[in-house]
């Protein structure tokens, strides 16, 4: 029966049994679809539950105060210490370095694409940036270790092979496309009339870009920064390959460090029996990682929702 016939049928009264069947079918479909929607809620519940149970049992053995104030992180050694600070410091270096690379460059290329680039150039550059965004992180990890680190060592001879500098630069490169495409969306949403009014008053493109477009799209740009930083915190493979595996309470980017994510990978690579304290550290560190990125994602969404300039 094709669509046309079906439509014809409904012009006449359908037998009540058929109407009832149809209603039941529609109900069933509605429930099936709703079931799929609940999958996404269940995922969140699953993440929280699996993190909370093992984290709880972790804190049965390690006092929270030690976790927060101890300056050593050595769960894999005989003399075990569970101070999260070295891993947080490692993550912090990566995040600062990556932001220094990605935020200015991403914003600049967003300004370039939204103000200066001719449509033909845009058509070529945008897909290329998408390619950069689609490269798997393990490939970036290879690039950091095999290309960027040797390059840096040519300039900084006493740089260790595994170092935070190279990893943070490459994490920054990885999130450039994210900053630039989200920022460009925000800048592109600024109405044409505002730009044209600026040009009509004799402003240069630089003035229009920095004094009209950027302030008007600022909330979107901020949101893109926050989301990109959250991505940098959660980035795993680049830091696992290039930043090293030595948890150290330092802010020196030339040394080998370890981030929260890299620690989780290191432990998972080895054979860690279920129920041991080392196994539980995965969850405790994961919990902290989840909480931080979750807070940043919520913040990013709030900034876009709350402060979006509304134009007619």
């Amino acid at each position, binding site marked *: 029966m094709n669509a046309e016939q079906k439509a014809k049928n409904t012009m006449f009264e359908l037998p009540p049994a058929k109407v009832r069947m149809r209603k039941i079918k529609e109900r069933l479909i509605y429930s099936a679809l709703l079931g799929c929607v609940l999958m996404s809620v269940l995922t969140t519940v699953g993440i929280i539950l699996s993190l909370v149970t093992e984290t709880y049992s972790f804190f049965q053995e390690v006092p929270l105060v030690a976790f927060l104030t101890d300056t050593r992180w050595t769960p894999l050694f005989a003399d075990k210490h569970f101070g999260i600070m070295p891993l947080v410091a490692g993550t912090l270096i990566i995040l600062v370095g990556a932001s220094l690379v990605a935020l200015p460059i991403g914003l600049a290329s967003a300004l370039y694409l939204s103000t200066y680039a001719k449509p033909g150039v845009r058509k070529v*550059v945008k897909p290329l*940036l998408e390619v950069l965004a689609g490269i798997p992180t393990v490939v970036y990890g290879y690039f950091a270790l095999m290309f960027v680190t040797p390059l840096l060592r040519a300039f900084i001879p006493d740089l260790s092979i595994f170092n935070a500098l190279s990893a943070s630069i490459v994490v920054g490169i990885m999130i450039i496309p994210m900053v630039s495409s989200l920022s460009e969306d925000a800048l592109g949403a600024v109405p044409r009339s505002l730009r044209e009014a600026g040009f009509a008053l004799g402003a240069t493109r630089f003035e229009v870009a920095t004094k009209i477009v950027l302030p008007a799209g600022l909330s979107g740009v901020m949101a893109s920064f926050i989301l990109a930083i959250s991505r940098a915190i*959660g980035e795993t493979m680049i830091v696992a390959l290039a930043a090293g595996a030595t948890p150290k309470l330092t802010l020196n980017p030339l040394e080998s460090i370890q981030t929260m994510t890299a620690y989780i990978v290191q432990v998972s690579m080895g054979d860690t029996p279920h129920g041991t304290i080392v196994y539980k550290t995965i969850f405790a560190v994961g919990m902290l990682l989840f909480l931080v990125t979750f807070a940043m994602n919520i913040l990013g969404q709030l900034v876009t929702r709350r402060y979006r300039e509304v134009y007619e």
Partner: protein
Amino acid sequence: MEEESLAFKRRLKRRARLDVAFHGLVLMATAFALIVLAALLFDVFRKGLGWLDFQFLSSFPSRIPERAGIHSSLMGTLWVTSITALLTFPIGVATAIFLEEYAPKNRLMNFIDINIANLAGVPSIVYGILGLAIFVRGMMLGRTVLAGALTMTLLVLPIMIITSREALRSVPSSLRLAFLAMGATKWQTIRHIVVPAALSGIFTGSILTVSRAIGETAPLILIGALSFVAFAPRSPFDGFTVLPIQIFSWVSRPQAEFSNLAAAAIIVLLIVLLSMNAVSVWLRHRYEKRNGK
């Protein structure tokens, strides 16, 4: 008077110079990203191309670089990605249909919206922890293809949902209303009108979703995909490794031969991903052309 106009001209010149300088600056920033892309590709091809041959594609990993290959990891990627795609596509599209076509505007739906956006931002390694706790331990699936695929499904589902929703939203409501006005039920309208009209957008989204699944490494390390696997999986309940993990384990070795092998495996991975990317660009282009008519 004379002086004032001179001052104005000077300022005008300075502003124009500033404009040119800024143009140069933002151009350089954009060029930087593209130069990095070129450097990455150049380095990978220079080191890896010599190692890439039929033997490399058909051999199992080995301690001897000359005999090593990516057969097991390629098959593992194929297994995990296929199961992930089979699970993600229906669940993702169904969720998108519900949220776009049925969902009432209320607090619960608002919450679900925010929830999905958040899930898209959860670090992939956290999904690995979820997979470890729920699929590997809780459901006792062990370190199998199935556990990997289920973990990956949850990871990429938000992307599938978000892209499918965009595709459904782009279908004009006049089409829906016309079909409903002829007496069709809601589901008939969706099945015969809305979904077909959104299909190319949905496909573009699913390509994006699958390529994300192909490139992910961290969650599969967590659920215990092995780095040295000398067999190809024969069922969803076999152990496995995937291409990105094989690359990871080769890059971690100090010998130069192994990093060249990693480069060769990266070439294979990038060829797969770039050709998928090309298909999605082509689909989008075709779709835009058809809509333009």
